[in-house]
């Protein structure tokens, strides 16, 4: 008769650490993630305080100092209109963050709502949501954005113009809002399906976990179970997806602006700066290099951060 010694079930006496603090400790040990986080924070800071950081107005042209190479007075040089590239990159950061945050917010809102409903209730609701998701994902992104731009831009602009003539409210003169509206709208429209899929899969898998049955066996209501058992457990993967999604949205914004269907000049965007820089890169490489490098840095940083969070928020895998 073999008796397993009692020591095989030790009583652990380490101090209780919260799951999030635990995750933070793990994140800090991951160098790439720390790099990603640092870059993301710096970029966010730049975006937030851009106007106080730019040495020049991003619009002010100085025709006497066109296409200057980087120097102390113009860190990234100047462009063909004599505008300070450093200031424009900073404003591009603002554009990128604004677009990324708003688009990701809308996409997450749509995706989480549809995904959670589909996963929780199943049945025909699930089929409709999944059909919508597949439909949206099967349309080439660029095509959709071009179509939206082509079909909506001029009607909205004309409506704005007519509102301006009728009310003389200067708000209706700001065509930049049309740009942003279309960029936000069309990008959110193509960005929500991955969130919906992720949340649906999460909810489906969490719904059948034993701790949900255990919570039901305690007599807790569906609302409490959804809010305190299902959602918090689905949050980790969602945070990871959002972090990676921010980077993707920035790249997407740049891509659209590059192709002329995103944010239009003179509003600075990394994408339209790259597009401008590309035409003259043999002569003035800094005009291409500066925005391209920052875009690359941002994209890499958010992707590292997403991966790092993925590992950090998965305590069972790490322990």
């Amino acid at each position, binding site marked *: *008769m*073999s*008796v*397993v010694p*009692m020591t*095989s*079930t*030790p*009583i*652990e*006496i*380490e101090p*209780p*650490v*919260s*799951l999030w603090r635990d995750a933070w400790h793990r994140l800090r040990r991951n160098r790439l993630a720390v790099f990603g986080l640092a870059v993301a924070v710096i970029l966010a800071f730049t975006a937030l305080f851009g106007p106080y950081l730019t040495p020049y107005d991003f619009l002010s042209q100085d025709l006497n100092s066109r296409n200057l190479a980087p120097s102390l007075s113009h860190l990234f040089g100047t462009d063909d209109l004599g505008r300070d590239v450093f200031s424009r990159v900073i404003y591009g950061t603002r554009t990128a963050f604004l677009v990324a945050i708003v688009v990701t917010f809308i996409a997450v809102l749509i995706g989480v709502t549809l995904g959670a409903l589909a996963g929780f209730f*199943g049945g025909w609701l699930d089929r409709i949501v999944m059909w919508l998701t597949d439909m949206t994902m099967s349309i080439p992104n660029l095509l959709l954005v071009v179509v939206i731009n082509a079909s909506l831009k001029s009607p909205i602009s004309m409506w704005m113009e007519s509102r301006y003539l009728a009310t003389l409210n200067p708000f209706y003169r700001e065509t930049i809002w049309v740009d942003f509206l279309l960029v936000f709208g069309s990008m959110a429209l193509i960005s929500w399906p991955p969130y919906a899929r992720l949340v649906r899969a999460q909810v489906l898998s969490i719904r*059948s*976990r*034993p*701790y949900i*049955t*255990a*919570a*039901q*066996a*305690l*007599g*807790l*209501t569906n609302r*409490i179970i959804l809010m*305190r*058992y299902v959602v*918090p*457990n689905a*949050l980790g993967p969602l945070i990871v997806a959002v972090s990676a999604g921010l980077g993707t949205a920035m790249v997407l914004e740049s891509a659209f602006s590059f192709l002329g269907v995103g944010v239009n000049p003179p509003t600075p965007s990394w994408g339209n700066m790259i597009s401008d820089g590309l035409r003259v890169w043999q002569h003035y490489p800094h005009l291409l290099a500066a925005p391209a490098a920052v875009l690359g840095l941002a994209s890499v940083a958010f992707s590292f951060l997403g991966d790092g969070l993925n590992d950090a928020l998965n*305590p*069972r895998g790490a*322990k």
Partner: protein
Amino acid sequence: MMMANDIRPEPTPKTRERLLDVKGLTIEIETRNGPATIVDGIDLHVDKGETLGIVGESGCGKSLTMLSMMRLLPNKIRVTKGEANFAGRDLQKMSNSDLRKVRGGEVGFIFQDPMTSLNPVMRIGQQLAEPLIYHRGMSKAEARKRSGELLKLVGIPGAEDRLDAYPHELSGGMRQRVMIAIGLACNPQLLIADEPTTALDVTIQAQIVDLVKDLRDKLGMSVVWITHDLALIAGLVDRINVLYAGTVVEDAPVDALFANPSHPYTQGLLASIPKLTDERSTRLSSIGGTPPEPGRRPTGCPFAPRCPLAESICHERVPSLEGVSQGGAHRVACFVAQRKLEAA
């Protein structure tokens, strides 16, 4: 004579009150080939203050029977027939909000797997407090205080400090104790413990059994204890039901069952006990074959394909659970056993 047992005699002279009375509960699962029966018209009962042990091979429907009573079945599995009366009310027909009051409040559950039955992102203290706040209307502070007492009750060292721990910070044994504490939180009248010790080593298993025994005597509740391991619960339970393929094949007071196991399946179970202590296997080495899969039940006695004593009648008719001794308290669903015991 075999048919003269439609009326169940009361087991003991003491007036006993039924707390739980399950009648003809049938559970089906939806499969690609249509519905398949998992539990076939099971009858179970537990009296006030009584401890019932349920034993049977893996997959015989022990967990599903308990879950179905409380309407906790997973998708695609549902109850098609029968009733489950708790304190005189049919849980199957009760409104959802009434049922929620029974769940956790009057019937406590301890689940099979302590590793996955606790919410990984909620502190132990909160998980304990949740039913207290919901069922007992306690304030957060009261619930926390009571949670600390509960952890002490189930023998967790440094109970109060453990309230802020997350499940992954506790060992398996500690988690199982937390599960027991949660099951007991609201002083339920009935505690359903579904193999609460499978994940633990032998000494801890014995500790948990003693703990539940203590608490039962202290709190005066009824207990249903599900297990593979007959030897483990011998000292804990009053009565044992042996389950095979979703039916009760033998129902007996614990001493009678050990002294005089009557169903061939029970005999096989008992014969395999010495081996259990060696390698803690849950296989029934002394009985060949495997239980029928859902949807492929034999027409006669469900055990007939594996039974060493099977006769021709066994393949044609289903034996019913009938009293053979102990004034009808020892009942068995086997033609051969019934004949033998009546002759004796």
